[in-house]
């Protein structure tokens, strides 16, 4: 640290190389060195071209473009196709890295002041957006929202996004992350299994328990969940809270109110409802200890009736899903006296794309994001990754969708304006982790619903002390 210019860069390279050689092998400490912050790097962009309507950010032709994408459930073929298109239009030379280890690969670069131009910061090892934003590492993406859209220059990009995209990507009042993939959350089931057994889609929680009981009696599990990652069962708990308590309950949690969980009848009812599944033995055997792939595959093998997940599920399970499985989406069923209708769903944008504040070619990074919000690129994504984007009607009608995605689209249409979204996982990582731990204990029957409420409220109260809590507010 401390040194500037060439010296800093040279040493960082040396450290990287020596790490590769295994010189730094001291346990627990070695990796810290690789992440130690470097000096200011000399980042010379290719200069800026004149700003025009076609070129709202002033991309200079013939520059470089450095793209890093998370290579997870969506693969990274779509990004390669985009980069080729971008290079063709702007004469750039783009470098591409598809990886699962976003944090490990990018942290040294953020610290060293030489981050890439565009990053798809997703996956289990993503760098938390709240942390990046706090450190002033993210470019303000508002200019992208206000730029003319590629398909219809008379309209702004902002007007073509599905509602919630901007809110979802806002940190401390600044729009910093373009969450590109439109995701809906809820339960999933096999249309084939349900038809075979003569079960109907449950609309209330009692009906849901009924189907689970029938499933158990038929020798298969009722509810499967991805036990090793309590993130998924939290989807069910939080959706039940939102539907019973309405949007106010959602906001109370995101705004870290002192009665977000405590003394909130909707929260207690939701947790008790989920606990009922556990208590009545309606969980798929062993599901509490399984990874997401293990439990999802078991579900694909008809070992459970339902599984909670987001709409990436179908693409993630492509290989494991039987041809005639007929994957179907189900909004989380209703508890009595719910404020939101059955059709209401948690829907929102995921897969955040960011442009680092210190990107060498920031104009190109912004232009890349604007291009992503064109129909052409959006269609490429839908084809390659079997998922919808945040661009309204962003897929050519000619593209045929798989059954799960089709049912998700139908659910989105049915939900209309009744969509909601939680922001606390993006805002408060520690609180999210604590609530996940509590849910894991609940599902394993080691704690009771009241204890869950207590622990969740404690996590909220702790997060309320975060200095960022002042900025992160929603209304």
């Amino acid at each position, binding site marked *: *640290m401390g040194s500037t210019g060439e010296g800093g860069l040279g*040493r960082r390279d*040396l*450290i990287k190389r*020596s790490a590769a050689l295994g*010189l*730094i092998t*001291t*346990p*627990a*400490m*070695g990796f*810290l*060195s690789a*992440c*130690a*912050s*470097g*000096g*200011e790097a000399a980042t010379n962009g290719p200069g800026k071209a004149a700003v025009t309507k076609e070129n709202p950010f002033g991309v200079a032709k013939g520059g470089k473009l450095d793209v890093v994408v998370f290579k997870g459930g969506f693969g990274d073929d779509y990004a390669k196709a985009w980069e080729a298109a971008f290079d063709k239009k702007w004469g750039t030379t783009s470098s591409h890295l598809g990886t699962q280890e976003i*944090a*490990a690969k990018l*942290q040294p670069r*953020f*610290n060293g*002041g030489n981050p890439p131009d565009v990053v798809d910061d997703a996956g289990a*090892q993503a*760098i*938390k957006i*709240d*942390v*990046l934003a*706090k*450190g*002033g*590492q993210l470019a303000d993406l508002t200019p992208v929202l206000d730029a003319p859209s590629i398909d219809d220059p008379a309209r702004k990009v902002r007007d073509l996004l599905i509602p919630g995209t901007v809110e979802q990507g806002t940190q401390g009042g600044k729009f910093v992350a373009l969450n590109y993939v439109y995701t809906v959350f809820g339960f999933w089931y096999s249309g084939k299994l349900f038809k075979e057994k003569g079960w109907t889609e449950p609309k209330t929680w009692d009906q849901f328990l009924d189907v689970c009981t029938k499933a158990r009696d038929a020798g298969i599990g009722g509810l499967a969940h991805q*036990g*090793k*990652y*309590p993130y998924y069962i939290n989807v069910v708990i939080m959706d039940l809270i939102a539907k019973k308590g309405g949007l106010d309950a959602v906001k109370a949690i995101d705004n870290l109110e002192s009665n977000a969980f405590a003394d909130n009848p909707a929260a207690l009812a939701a947790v008790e409802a989920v606990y009922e599944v556990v208590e009545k*033995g309606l969980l*798929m*055997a*062993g*599901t*509490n*200890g*399984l990874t997401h792939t*293990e439990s999802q595959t*078991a579900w694909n093998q008809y070992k459970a009736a339902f599984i909670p997940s987001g709409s990436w599920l179908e693409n993630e399970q492509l290989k494991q899903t039987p041809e005639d499985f007929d994957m179907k989406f189900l909004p989380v069923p209703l508890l009595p006296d719910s404020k939101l209708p059955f059709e209401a769903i948690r829907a929102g944008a995921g897969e955040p794309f960011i442009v680092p504040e210190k990107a060498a070619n920031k104009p190109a990074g912004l232009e890349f994001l604007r291009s992503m919000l064109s129909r052409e690129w959006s269609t490429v994504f839908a084809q390659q990754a079997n998922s919808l984007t945040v661009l309204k009607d962003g897929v050519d009608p000619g593209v045929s969708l798989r059954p799960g995605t089709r049912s998700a689209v139908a659910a989105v249409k049915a939900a209309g304006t009744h969509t909601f979204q939680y922001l606390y996982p993006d805002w408060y*990582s*520690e609180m999210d*982790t604590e609530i*996940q*731990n*509590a849910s*894991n*204990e609940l599902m*394993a029957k*080691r704690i009771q619903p009241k204890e869950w409420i207590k622990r969740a409220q404690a996590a909220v109260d702790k997060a309320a002390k975060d200095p960022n809590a002042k900025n992160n507010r929603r209304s």
Partner: protein
Amino acid sequence: MSHVARGRGRAGFIAGFLVLPLALYLTFVIWPYIQTFGYSFTNWSGQSPTFDFVGWENYAALMEDEVFRGALWHNLLLLVFVPATTILLALFFAFMVNAGGRSGAGGVRGVRGSSFYKIVYFFPQVLSLAILAVLFGAVYRSDEGGLLNGLLIRLGLVDAGRPVEWLNDPDLVLWCLLLVVVWHGVGFYLVLFSAAMQSVPKDVYEAALLDGAGRAQTFFRVTLPLLWDSVQTSAVYLGIAAMDMFVLVSTMTSGQFGGGPDHHSEVMATVLMRNFLYFGKSGYACAMGVVMLVLTMVLSVVVLRATRRDRIEF
């Protein structure tokens, strides 16, 4: 050439050899330690080069951190059990394959098929920790697809509707992990002890046998004292491994960088990584790193001191 000049020349010659390795060592080992120490006094987020100096705040917070204290406790538990179990098993097996056979006309030898056992025992050492995690993930899988559960269910010891959730059980998870480490380590230390045993002259054993010593007596009176140096070194190595445990815990247990269920398998390294990469509290994580460093160093010194004995020449 004068005596002094010759001496100086030799020193220069030696220094010439040492400059490069020393520089590398200072740059890549010592300097990061110093940097980490420095960062532990800041509120560095890990994602940006800017931070403020906060003094001892991180260390004070560390004292209050129940998760970290729990992790420390787990590390200490492992510190007792990992070296003890591994070394005892390795010694036992090494003795059996080298000197445990019935004393025949040929003098001292291992049990029948010992050369085969030696190879088999070494197998686990060849596997990387990542493979090990996958392998034992399948063993401990929490439904009937798991090796252990499948076996127990077939034997009728476990109800198929309630399989044992090995790694999701707060009382079992740490022991399950311990078993993996021991399983992995025994083979290597067996080979290490075997080599040491083979360097013990045969006539020492023969003399013991002639004096009428049984297997146990031969082991405790002859083998163990002669192997003390190797045992001591092994204890330090295994102790450091027990202080780390990062790879296994982070891949096999639930939670961000492992540690689940509900912090019951947490070790210091997993808490450190979660704070470092996920919570954006890198300065705080650096303080943990410093604590780990100090503990590991104290541990090495204590073990080496406490187990010091007179060297037996042979």
